[in-house]
């Protein structure tokens, strides 16, 4: 059972990897946006906001946001391919194999998660080149990837649920277009929570993106603050658990 499950997921990975290799453009394009935020937005506001953000350096402040954005974008698009498979009939073709149906989802989920976290690492490298130094060093970077994984899991799960719930990919694109920016602005990505109007900060505190950003920002700027890290990590894990439960419910019906 475990062996066949791994063989199936290996086949899925092979498929997604082969496609990614041929579509490096998309891979670069998803990275480009956060890098631009970091390089242009971060640099342009660098002098203006000096001293008004925690840590005093806006680029350091923005690093967490750029990382989280990368994971968010990658994860949100992650389910789209499964939707295309359903639309084209390829999914049905796969159902005529002895594949565990859940492998269709786990293969994609794990692949997207791995790719988005790797992309996040590239963002951290870019920030390093721009002079950003982690207060917690390499261990902090490693922990950042873990936090990215927790957030990526949540976003990818949402994306996969959408792939099975929506009727066609047009709806999928609409939702991505509607949701992306507000979710970003309703987080602490661009401004610290303390600097936001009360209502905005209240909403932002419920946003999983904020949890990931606050945890990573602490690792970059402040250092090993166990209180913040545990709290934010716990919140993210809670969101993950909730979404995975929801996904299990939805998929049990859709994959049956």
């Amino acid at each position, binding site marked *: 059972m475990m062996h066949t499950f791994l063989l199936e997921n290996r086949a899925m990975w092979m498929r997604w990897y082969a496609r990614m290799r041929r579509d490096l453009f998309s891979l670069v394009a998803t990275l480009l946006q956060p890098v631009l935020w970091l390089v242009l937005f971060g640099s342009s506001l660098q002098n203006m906001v000096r001293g008004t953000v925690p840590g005093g350096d806006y680029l350091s402040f923005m690093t967490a946001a750029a990382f989280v954005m990368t994971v968010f974008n990658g994860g949100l698009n992650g389910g789209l391919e499964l939707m295309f498979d359903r639309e084209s009939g390829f999914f049905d073709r796969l159902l*005529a194999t002895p594949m565990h149906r859940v492998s269709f989802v786990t293969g994609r989920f794990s692949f997207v998660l791995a790719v988005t976290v790797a992309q996040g690492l590239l963002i951290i490298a870019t920030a390093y080149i721009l002079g950003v130094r982690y207060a917690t060093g390499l261990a902090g970077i490693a922990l950042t990837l873990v936090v990215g994984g927790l957030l990526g899991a949540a976003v990818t799960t949402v994306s996969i649920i959408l792939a099975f719930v929506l009727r066609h990919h047009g709806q999928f694109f609409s939702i991505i277009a509607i949701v992306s920016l507000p979710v970003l602005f309703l987080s602490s990505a661009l401004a610290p929570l303390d600097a936001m109007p009360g209502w905005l900060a209240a909403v932002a505190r419920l946003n999983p993106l904020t949890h990931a950003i606050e945890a990573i920002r602490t690792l970059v700027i402040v250092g090993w603050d166990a209180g913040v890290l545990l709290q934010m990590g716990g919140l993210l894990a809670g969101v993950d658990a909730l979404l995975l439960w929801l996904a299990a419910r939805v998929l049990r019906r859709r994959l049956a």
Partner: protein
Amino acid sequence: MDAIVVENIVKRFGSVEALRGVSFRVRRGEIFGLLGPNGAGKTTLIRTLLGLLRPAEGRVRIFDMDLERHPEAVHRFVGWVPQERAMDPFLTGRENLLFVAGLHHIPAREARDRVDGLLELVELTGAADRITRGYSGGMRRRLQLAMGLVHRPKVLLLDEPSLGLDVQTRRRMWWLIEKLRAGGTTVLITTHYLDEADALCDRVAIIEQGEIRGLDTPDALKQRYGGPPLLVLEWGEPGAHGRRQLIDSLKALPGVREVAERAGGVWVRGDDVVAVTRAVLAECERWGVTPARLSVRQPTLDDVFLAMTGASLKESTEEMSA
């Protein structure tokens, strides 16, 4: 033991009855055809055999395993070549095959060997490492065939194997299917092409509006339902002298069942084709008509279809695609 036993399958979509009590058996090692116009229920039937659709009534057995109780029987015994473009267009032919092999739990090393063999079988070795998006229709069909064979199924279900292929490519497809059967594979194809059913299938079930109307070898079907052979008389040179009289007298001949005027000639159908031919030639002489050509046309599956359903398959198919 038969390869596939279908017993009284009923499938409804809402208030529409797509299959109304379909029963048949596919024998081991035969090429069995489901012939019918688009919308007759062929694809619904295939999807039911694959366990992708659940019938409201009836049951399916594949190599003596009940599909409801043993859905894994499909994965073990059945290969499927669907109608749609069921492959990843961004993968190469080889990658598509390796992917499906993985989903069938074939270990990597063995999968590589099998895939090499399959690529050779379907003559895609040269194109194996090209993205399938650039494949021609015939290449896609062949790759799909190979994808359905990765796990060495005992039964192959082919949904419209030559849909949209040119004549030459169809012939190659048929040759491949014959070759598989020669190797011991049982083949079930759906088709709305009469010549395909005729040329390829050992036995044919005629399906229309969710019901099997007849089932036998193509020859037996034609003999039983196709009516007597048709005498086709072509006028040839211009000039209508005596033709009117000829046609009227043909209609009065004993043993003649049907006389139909066609552009450029006349069709005569009678019980005894030899006697009718003699009589027709005598009448031609009598009225001074010299036909350019006289030929006997054996009944086709279309005649069978017409006799069974009251509609020509050619016409009903054209209607559907129009």
